[in-house]
């Protein structure tokens, strides 16, 4: 006598769970242009690598004879799997069962997924599609009571940010706790058209007198622009592809180091055009992305958060195979000056690099903080001060390349100057506490006021000061360590990556990541 009968029942229950919310609900999910949660898991993970945990959890109805009559599976599917051969934990909401709301799921499954990632030191991917929170007011009637809200599992959710890579994918209309789970990650994505995210959806907002559609209230483009999520993609498959890319630069947990990737690009490669990459006319902009993409290993550039804090570019990349965190300036947006958003972006990115032991390369052209009334209203000083604190709190290997401007407090924030200044400057370097163009009025106020022709005097002073702006004058006094031929930059950065690799220290870092 074997246990075959029970195994048959187990298979039967698994088959019932695979029906999700039933054919009608699944058809509705597809009609909305969305994959089902099981399709999502299959497409994200390596082929047939999903080891589901808790597959047969759900709500059952039994007949008087004790036989199973009806079964509605839990609306949270989770387990382990592999991505590019590396073990991960994945957990996804099933919108076809009660709209992905927590009240229909076995809440402890969600916690289990968080805990599994936490204790097994594995990356966690959350596929979020629904509210995932307390659920509907209907539960008042079924439970005949209410409760003081609490953020279930938040100790684990927060601890995971300090220990394992966490990726959030918004794959439907996401609200409440579901939104918070999406944002509380190292990397968050939404899919154009099918994903929206808000605190509360249009019906609740309508009660405040504001009539808005889902897209108007929390469209993916808007969420990326205001920085509540990192990136927007066009399809779920593209989202899964980006998850795989993102994780490829990171260790499975902070207790390991980022692994060296393929080394297919010559570390000594010299791009001739770099010598003319920065225009001689200081007012003229240039394409920073083209520059940084040629400095790093071909094809390794992975930009994060392009739509937010645009004066600052943040990307994961590789140098001779070593993963690095890359910061750069985009002169097209405020000349690369730091806005409040740009500063917040820097802070989060430094925290990401610190948490996962990624050496930083900073390609600098920062004219300072963006100034003016709007900058003050945006609390640029608050966000800028946080970014500075982040810079001085980390002890990461850090290399800065001054390609053009470094002015003022924000310009100075390209390196922790009290540590070894591992720094290079291109001949186009231009720096100081204030740019000459704006600083003359303040410094020569009395002379200019007394002059018969202030404009001519201004021009004369500018001409007088011009030679002192030469980076050679700074290098003479060893105020900048080295001026280099831009074409040698890649070779020197690859050398930096090699020197930095053995300095990386696994473990939980002192300043944990905050979303």
């Amino acid at each position, binding site marked *: 006598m074997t246990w075959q009968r029970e195994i048959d029942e187990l298979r039967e229950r698994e088959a019932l769970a695979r029906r999700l919310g039933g054919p009608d609900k699944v058809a509705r999910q597809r009609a909305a242009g969305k994959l089902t949660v099981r399709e999502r898991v299959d497409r994200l993970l390596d082929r047939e690598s999903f080891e589901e945990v808790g597959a047969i959890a759900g709500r059952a109805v039994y007949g008087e004879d004790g036989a199973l009559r009806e079964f509605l599976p839990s609306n949270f599917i989770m387990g382990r799997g592999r991505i590019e051969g590396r073990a991960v934990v994945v957990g996804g909401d099933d919108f076809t069962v009660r709209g992905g709301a927590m009240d229909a799921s076995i809440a402890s499954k969600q916690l289990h997924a968080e805990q599994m990632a936490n204790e097994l030191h594995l990356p966690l991917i959350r596929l979020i599609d629904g509210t995932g929170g307390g659920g509907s007011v209907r539960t008042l009637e079924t439970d005949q009571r209410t409760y003081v809200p609490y953020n279930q599992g938040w100790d684990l959710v927060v601890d995971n940010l300090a220990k394992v890579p966490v990726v959030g994918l918004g794959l439907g209309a996401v609200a409440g706790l579901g939104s918070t789970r999406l944002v509380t990650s190292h990397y968050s994505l939404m899919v154009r058209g099918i994903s929206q995210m808000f605190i509360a959806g249009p019906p609740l907002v309508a009660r405040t007198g504001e009539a808005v559609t889902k897209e108007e209230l929390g469209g993916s483009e808007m969420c990326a622009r205001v920085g509540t999520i990192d990136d927007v993609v066009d399809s779920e498959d593209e989202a899964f592809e980006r998850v795989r890319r993102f994780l490829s630069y990171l260790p499975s947990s902070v207790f390991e180091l980022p692994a060296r990737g393929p080394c297919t690009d010559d570390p000594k490669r010299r791009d001739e055009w770099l010598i003319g990459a920065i225009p001689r006319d*200081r*007012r*003229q*902009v240039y394409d920073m992305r083209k520059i940084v993409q040629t400095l790093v290993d071909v094809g390794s550039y992975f930009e994060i958060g392009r739509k937010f804090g*645009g004066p600052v570019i943040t990307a994961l990349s590789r140098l001779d195979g070593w993963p690095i965190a890359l910061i750069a300036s985009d*002169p*097209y*947006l*405020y*000349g*690369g*000056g730091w806005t409040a958003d740009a500063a917040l972006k820097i802070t989060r990115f430094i925290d990401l690099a610190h948490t996962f032991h990624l050496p930083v390369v900073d390609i600098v052209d920062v*004219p*300072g903080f*963006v100034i*003016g009334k*709007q900058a003050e209203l945006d609390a640029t000083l608050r966000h800028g001060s946080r970014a500075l604190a982040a810079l001085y709190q980390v002890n990461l290997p850090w290399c800065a390349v001054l390609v053009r401007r470094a002015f003022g407090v924000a310009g100075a924030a390209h390196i922790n100057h009290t540590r070894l200044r591992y720094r290079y400057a291109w001949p186009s370097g231009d720096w100081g506490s204030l*740019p000459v*163009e*704006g600083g003359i009025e303040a410094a020569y106020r009395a002379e200019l006021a007394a002059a018969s022709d202030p404009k001519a005097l201004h021009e004369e002073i500018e001409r007088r000061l011009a030679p002192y702006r030469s980076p050679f004058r700074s290098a003479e006094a060893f105020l900048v360590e080295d001026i280099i031929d831009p074409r040698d930059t890649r070779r020197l950065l690859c050398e930096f990556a090699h020197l930095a690799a053995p300095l990386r220290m696994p473990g939980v870092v002192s300043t944990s990541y905050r979303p």
Partner: protein
Amino acid sequence: MQTPIHSEIAGIVLEIKLAPGSAVAIDEVVLMVECMKMYIPIASPVAGRIHSVAVAEGALIEEGQLAFVVESSAS
């Protein structure tokens, strides 16, 4: 189809390079804005004809403000 182009930066409009009625190519510069002592181009992401320019030379432009509208035949 009309495509409104909004400024991604605040600054002073230095120059309007294409007047209403002019043909415009993808990535062709329509306005120059001075910001943080730089001359920053605002280009059209679509091809077509300039329908209208919403700002004047010498005027301030705010982040998110309508800069110009492109009329294109693309569907």
